């Protein structure tokens, strides 16, 4: 049953990364879209994520609930040492969700729209940045349980070049996911070609920021290169991801939006596999060669069992309903 719970945790994180990521990404796209296309982008965005954004963010809640019910020590450790970036991320979540809703549901269309837009865009940028930063801190061995002074315990636990580069990388992935996602929702083929050009740009941004992650990891003595290329699973992941890039560029020329989506979802999948597989079952790598393992820090057996059943039962209700939602509001069905 423990494996069921861990699988749900992993899948929730993955789904949050792609669905939530695409969701944040549309805000990032808005920032980097010129005046000429902004209205079209906003319209397409709204149509494609309006009905589903709240559901997209549920995956984060599912992951966090799994963590605090199933692995409470891990949850409380993160909560203590990553308090500040978690608060900043939460402020982003609050600002973003409300601004997105407010700008659509304000009954009067006036200058307030500018305020909502600004808040929506800025928070779309900072939220994935801090999510990435938090994720980086769980593997960078920067959390030190023996530190007590404020800066080293609560600030340097997350504020370092590696964390920042992963934050930027996460923002880039979000924008990349979003740019591919909305291609399939484009109203005209001319607009579709415009979005495809943008998607290619974001692809290279992801690539560059990915290289930056490797460089900062190298200087922080994080054996990231070794984790990914030093073992079979990692190598396979890299090869498959590379192949999917070729398929993606083929799909760009053929304007096959579903294949594009599958490709990016797959690439993100491979990134997460490569990033987590190596140190499984350790979820958090701490300073002084300590770590928090999912095996050593699980809740009682009965709790894990009940949690697994709740998750399985929940998915029976949720998944078909969710798929029907995503399907119903797809462009071709509207």
């Amino acid at each position, binding site marked *: 049953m423990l494996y069921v719970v861990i699988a749900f945790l992993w899948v929730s994180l993955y789904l949050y990364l792609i669905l939530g990521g695409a969701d944040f990404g549309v805000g990032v796209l808005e920032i980097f879209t010129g005046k000429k296309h902004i209205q079209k982008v906003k319209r397409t965005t709204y149509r494609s994520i*309006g*009905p*589903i954004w*709240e*559901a997209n*963010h*549920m995956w*984060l*809640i*599912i992951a*966090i*609930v*799994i963590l*605090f*019910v*199933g692995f*409470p*020590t891990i*949850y*409380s450790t993160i*909560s*203590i040492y990553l*308090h500040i970036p*978690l*608060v900043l991320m*939460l*402020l982003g*979540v*609050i600002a*973003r*969700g*409300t601004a*997105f*809703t*407010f700008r659509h*549901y*304000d*009954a*009067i269309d006036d200058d307030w729209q500018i305020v909502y837009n600004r808040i929506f865009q800025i928070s779309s940028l900072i939220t994935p940045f801090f999510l990435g930063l938090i994720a980086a801190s769980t593997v960078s061995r920067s959390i030190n349980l023996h530190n007590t002074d*404020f800066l080293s*315990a*609560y600030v340097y636990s997350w504020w370092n070049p590696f964390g920042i580069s992963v934050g930027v990388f996460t923002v880039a992935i979000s924008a990349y996911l979003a740019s591919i996602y909305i291609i399939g929702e484009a109203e005209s083929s001319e607009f579709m070609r415009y979005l495809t050009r943008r998607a290619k740009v974001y692809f290279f941004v992801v690539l560059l920021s990915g290289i930056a992650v490797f460089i900062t990891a190298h200087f922080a003595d994080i054996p990231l290169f070794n984790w990914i290329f030093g073992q079979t699973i990692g190598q396979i992941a890299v090869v498959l991801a590379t192949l999917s890039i070729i398929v993606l560029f083929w799909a760009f020329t053929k304007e096959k939006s579903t294949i594009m989506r599958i490709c990016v979802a797959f690439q993100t999948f491979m990134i997460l596999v490569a990033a987590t597989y190596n140190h499984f079952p350790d979820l958090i790598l701490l300073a002084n060669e300590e770590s928090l393992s999912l095996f050593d820090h699980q*809740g*009682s057996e*009965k*709790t894990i069992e*009940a*949690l697994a059943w*709740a*998750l399985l*039962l*929940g998915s029976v*209700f*949720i998944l078909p*309903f*969710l798929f029907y*939602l995503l399907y*119903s*509001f797809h462009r071709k069905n*509207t």
Partner: protein
Amino acid sequence: MDDFIAARSQMALSLGFHIIFACVGMVMPIFMAISHYKYLKTGDELYKGLTKAWSKGVAILFATGAVSGTMLSFELGLLWPGFMKHAGPIFGMPFSLEGTAFFIEAIALGFFLYGWNRFNKWFHWATGVLVGISGLASGILVVAANAWMNSPSGFDYHDGVYSNIDPIKAMLNDAWFSQALHMVLAAFVATGFAVAGVHALMILKNKNIEFHRRAFFIAATCACIAALLQPISGDISAKDVAKRQPIKLAAMEAHFHTEPYSPFIIGGIVDEENQKVDYAIKLPGVLSFLVHGDFETPVKGLNEFPKENLPPIAITHYAFQIMISLGMLLCLISLTYFIAIWKKNSWLSSPWFLKLFVFAIPLGYIALEAGWVVTEVGRQPWIIYEIMRTKDAVTPMPGIVYSFYIFTAVFISLSLIVVFLLYRQMKMVGKLYDPTDPHFKHNVKH
């Protein structure tokens, strides 16, 4: 302000803020479903407009509730890691089920808001009902988790070690039923009166009268039924608290001394130092009667308990007084409402009657917040009743004060914007939602 008080204040503020939106999410979908049903049955376009108008309000409030709820699931750990480390696996069951319920609510809301003219009309209606059902389920489950903090069960505790954990037993603890019942009714009372009052105000202003009248009746009827049932549920709760948490009950009543014919104390100024309540109305024997069913049996007073286990007495007492007096007032308004419906139809359109409901707009929510103050402050100094003290659960990170200031600013600005948006929605009723209005525009964005 020290960090411990800041952490408690931040938690209180976040919960107090979230609960308003959570209640709206539980109750408004039911109102919408009633109005939607009437539209589908009668074809009355006003009901269709009303359903749509309400759904816009719900979308705004639901989003605010969703993000503040997301924040709370993190905040439990951010502020109380010592608590979550031990409590998570024990009382986490309702949260994992709540995750499912809330997920379904979010999906169903997507269907409902964006599903006009897209699906079979009864499927569309059912998704709206599902929003309400899953909202209610979420609320009940979260209250069950809170009830566990008042009535911890489903584990053995010995020398700081929690063993023999049974999460199902923890979820079905002794307090969950009385608390959940009281909460659900409170949600209907608070939201119902707030909504009815706003529509009463619009009728008074002579705007889109037929539209607002329909809205008023749906909201007022639900609110008034709930308000009349609430004292029964309150009595169940009080008896339950008396049995499980006698200190809390004594604090609610500022009842210091154990004595036969224990009095029911109304109002007054609490003097914790000298253990007395000045200027209060005391009804001898009534407290004994409410707790034990006879007027003589004494009710345990606060001075029977060790001082370090007492909650802040004045706050608990005042909050309790506010809750019950507003509850009684709303009962009276409800009685007036039903008299008007059955006997005196002319009252329904008279200004004094409508003004009564306008006056009642905030009362339900004030009573609800006061009720939560009673539950939460009355449980202090414990975070898990008689197991873990709140001060032992707080985060070791210093500087929580600043986080408290930031979130206070965030919540105040969000509240202001939400009120502003709802005001703008109300202003546009004629143009957007009332098809009988001369300014009504067909086929606009909304």
